[in-house]
């Protein structure tokens, strides 16, 4: 396991009119034994970042180093990384067992067969695919394929695991099991992992840090808590939170003491409180109540703007009620979407 650094790495695809900047001057350090989450919308450059670290793409500018060694010009095979592809890309002509054994059988490693058998068995048990070992890789369900792909990475102890949405096609139960399992493995082995996901819970619970990426730029890096509570801009604020953060034009809420220049006010669902009329920042109409069991999502219309807030499951509100709405710890954003400090 090792520290992995990106130094001002840039990557473009295509030329002339069709040129795309996939990664722009990205600098990121993944500490030894750290699990960093990469979060971003589709096309943001997440996969490209992993491919640059793996050596499948050569950066146009900048440096990649693994364990202090500059590997910018080094072949993938010599970088000692493991990659779980977004497309699971199992070798279709091999059995599940041979797929898992494939990295260990590489001419560079030459692990003895007995050792391979032991490791493959161990990983198969972990991922609950022991009974599939003799199947052709193509004769599996999507979720099973994805587990084999994860297994092919886990049989090795590389400098870094690169995982591109590895749990995306699993059902909720298996996904949460494997999430915990991966986290446990990571802590036990002290594995360094760079992990791409769209999944809110994975992002919040698995990583020690989250890097939010948008249009090839690393917009913010921080602990899940920092990213959630202190987003640097609207884009980051919208990436986390389920349901998403409430965004209200400043002009609709003249009562809120916003700093000058504020254009949009953001409030997480748990920070929008139903209050007594006198205390409120505005009065809204309850339009719809989603009862989720442990909590309710209250959809409130405030001066034509829809807001979602959390309600107690036993609250006696009903659709059509008029309620006061209060914003706790609102976030302010300027016209360009950048965050501005409160109470300035």
């Amino acid at each position, binding site marked *: 396991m090792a520290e992995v650094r990106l130094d001002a790495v840039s990557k473009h695809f295509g030329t002339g009119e069709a040129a795309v900047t996939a990664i722009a001057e990205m600098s990121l350090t993944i500490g030894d034994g750290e699990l960093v989450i990469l979060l971003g919308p589709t096309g943001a450059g997440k996969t490209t970042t992993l491919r640059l670290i*793996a*050596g*499948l793409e050569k950066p146009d500018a900048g440096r990649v180093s693994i364990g202090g060694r500059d590997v910018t010009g080094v*072949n*993938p*095979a010599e*970088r000692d*990384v*493991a*990659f779980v*592809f977004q*497309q*699971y*890309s*199992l*070798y*279709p*002509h091999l059995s599940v067992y041979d797929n898992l054994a*494939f*990295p260990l059988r*590489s*001419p*560079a*490693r030459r692990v003895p067969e007995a050792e391979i058998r032991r490791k493959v068995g161990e990983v198969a048990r972990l991922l609950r695919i022991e009974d599939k070992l003799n199947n052709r*890789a*193509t004769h599996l369900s*999507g979720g099973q*394929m994805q587990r084999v792909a994860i297994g*092919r990475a886990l049989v090795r102890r590389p400098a870094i695991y690169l995982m591109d949405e590895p749990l995306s*096609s699993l059902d909720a139960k298996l996904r949460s099991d494997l999430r915990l399992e991966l986290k446990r493995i990571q802590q036990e082995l002290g594995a360094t992992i760079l992990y791409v996901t769209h999944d809110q819970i994975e992002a919040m619970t698995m990583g020690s840090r989250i890097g939010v990426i948008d249009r090839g730029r690393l917009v913010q890096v921080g602990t899940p808590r920092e990213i959630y509570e202190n987003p640097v801009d609207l884009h980051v604020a919208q990436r986390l939170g389920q349901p998403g953060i409430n965004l209200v034009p400043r002009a609709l809420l003249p009562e809120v003491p916003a700093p000058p220049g504020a254009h949009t006010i953001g409030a997480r669902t748990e920070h929008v409180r139903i209050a007594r009329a006198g205390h409120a920042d505005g009065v809204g109409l309850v339009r719809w109540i989603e009862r989720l069991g442990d909590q309710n999502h209250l959809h409130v219309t405030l001066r034509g703007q829809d807001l979602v807030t959390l309600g107690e499951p036993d609250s006696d509100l009903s659709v059509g009620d008029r309620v006061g709405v209060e914003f706790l710890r609102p976030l302010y954003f300027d016209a360009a979407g950048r965050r501005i400090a409160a109470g300035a």
Partner: protein
Amino acid sequence: MPGLSTAHSVVEPSALSKRIAQGIVILYALLTMIPLAWILLTGFKTPPDSISYPPKLVFQPSLEGYCNLFTTRSRQTPEYIAGLPPAEGMCDEIARSRNMVVAGPSKFVPRFVNSLVIAFTSTLLAVGLGTLAAYGFSRFRVPLADDLLFFILSTRMMPPIAVAIPIYLMYRELGLSDTKLGMILLYTAVNVSLAVWLLKGFIDEIPREYEEAAMIDGYTRLQAFRKVVLPQAATGIAATAIFCLIFAWNEYAFAVLLTSGEAQTTPPFIPFIIGEGGQDWPAVAAATTLFVIPIFVFTILLRKHLLRGITFGAVRK
């Protein structure tokens, strides 16, 4: 919704339509096999039976055709033959019944061996070079790739025999006339363009992710090519090899022009059989029957690869 009625492609065809389809296929197969069957039968007729009219479907089988194919004979007077020691072997006996004696082995076996060596070696070379070139075109940014591919294909745009005279003169200068090496090079050159195009199609279909995964798993590009690309291209390679072999095996025009002795292949040899001692159709039919066997065996051997089909579905598209 009309757009959703795709189910017919999944449903098993009805028993009746299966029967009809089978019937058509069998009928067609029988039709195409009539000439082959005719040749097979003719090989076992005597020369008089082979030209009798109306044609005989029931006849006394004889190995005279095969004997004539493998031997050369000379005509002798009955008195001379009567004075010889008893015939050794069946072919000698048949020859004597026609007032001939076996003079020695014919050139059929060496010509057949020439065909085998030239066709299989050139196929191996064409498919080998074609696979590597196709992989290169498929995976690397080759400058002017499209123009190069067009150029490669353009070598097939006129009938190869159109360049027969230049090639004939060139070969004479280079000392390649009537050599196996010359024929191997020629057939390889003709086949390699077909091989590149066919195989590029097959290799383009193999997602790069497989090689990328292998390279990350610790394999060099060449090792990844061998372990991951080749097994998956097996279907395409087998199909291409069959095409190349059929061309090289059957090629007639260049073989007539460029070979006459040492390196002569079977196709130009077969007409010679007719010339020797009357119209010996059973010998021609015997040669043709034997000539079909290698291609037949080769295709059967590769059938497994041809039918295995291309694997879909391990990469989520």
